[in-house]
């Protein structure tokens, strides 16, 4: 075989590796930009950026405290384990004598510091956004969970948007009431309107998820 063919045989796999890695890297980071970026790439980039905005809300305490991987909810901005040994129970509604609704009513009780909303309960384990050590999952992991229709009560993009726009317990996060010490609970990092807008952009982009673990 001529020497240059041997060289090609060596170099080609190398080029393949570089090429694939390049695609992989550029997909994770988002396309940096450049004159030769396509419209589809731009939409994908916007969608992924929008997702990061959504992710920032989902993993804020007002939301993630009830999306645990354990058999207990969390509370507080420091997301500590909920007091009085309340636990998930078979349906995420607590156990007899310690049901969520035994304290959490259908509206906030500002005079006593207990948050409330309709049908207060834990998100099912299929919708967990943390690991069993109470650490928030990565952006890509949460995205996969949220978009997996076998785990998210069969919601497609538009359904997810409607959920973020209208669901009572979602809306609660922006009206979380007072703590027992009288101070207001902190809100998610975006306004509800911005959250909905980001969700819309993400849904329009086809609910893309970042690559990775």
């Amino acid at each position, binding site marked *: 075989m001529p020497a240059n063919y041997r060289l090609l045989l060596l170099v080609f796999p190398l080029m393949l590796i570089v090429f694939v890695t390049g695609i992989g890297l550029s997909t994770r980071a988002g396309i940096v930009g450049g004159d030769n970026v396509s419209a589809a790439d731009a939409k994908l980039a916007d969608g992924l950026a929008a997702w990061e905005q959504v992710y920032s809300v989902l993993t804020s305490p007002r939301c993630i405290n009830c999306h645990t991987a354990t058999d207990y909810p969390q509370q507080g901005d420091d997301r500590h384990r909920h007091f009085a040994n309340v636990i998930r129970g078979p349906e995420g509604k607590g156990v*007899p*004598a310690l049901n969520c609704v035994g*304290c959490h009513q259908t509206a906030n009780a500002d*005079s*006593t510091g207990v948050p409330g909303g309709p049908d207060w309960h834990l998100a099912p384990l299929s919708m967990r956004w943390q690991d069993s050590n109470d650490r928030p999952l990565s952006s890509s992991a949460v995205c996969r969970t949220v978009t997996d229709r076998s785990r998210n009560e069969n919601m497609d993009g538009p359904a997810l948007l409607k959920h973020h726009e209208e669901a009572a317990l979602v809306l609660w996060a922006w009206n979380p009431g007072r703590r027992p010490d009288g101070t207001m609970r902190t809100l998610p990092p975006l306004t509800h309107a911005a959250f909905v807008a980001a969700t819309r952009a993400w849904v329009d982009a086809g609910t893309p998820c970042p690559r990775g673990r």
Partner: protein
Amino acid sequence: MATYQLNVNGQTKQVNVDPSTPLLWVLREELKMTGTKYGCGISACGACTVHLAGIATRSCVVPVSLIGDRKITTIEGMGQDPVGRAVQNAWVEKDVVQCGYCQSGQIMSAVALLKATPKPTDRNIEESMGGNLCRCATYVRIREAIKSAAEQVT
């Protein structure tokens, strides 16, 4: 101030209170029903437990304005309930109480457990009673009394 009609142990009671008043204080001070106790005020101890529409509820954190027409049952009403009676009798028979201050809440929680789970396992008991504090630590006898009551309720 607002007027509320409350259904307490099967009777209708009318109270005129600030809407933010927790049910606990409506019971204790408006209706003079002191069996339901104040232990912490933040739902951490269970001494204030009543049944609201049959669900064990911590009355210290529920403002009267959120009750609506849901039926309220308190410790004073447990004598009229077969499960309530069985639990109270088991409590007496097993000599559970020490200071007794938490026991209204313990009994209300135990009754809620037995109504939902007539034959509770040790784990059921520990989970359902897990949020009721007893500083005298009568927990050992509470476990025994619940099992005994379960046997009495057919």
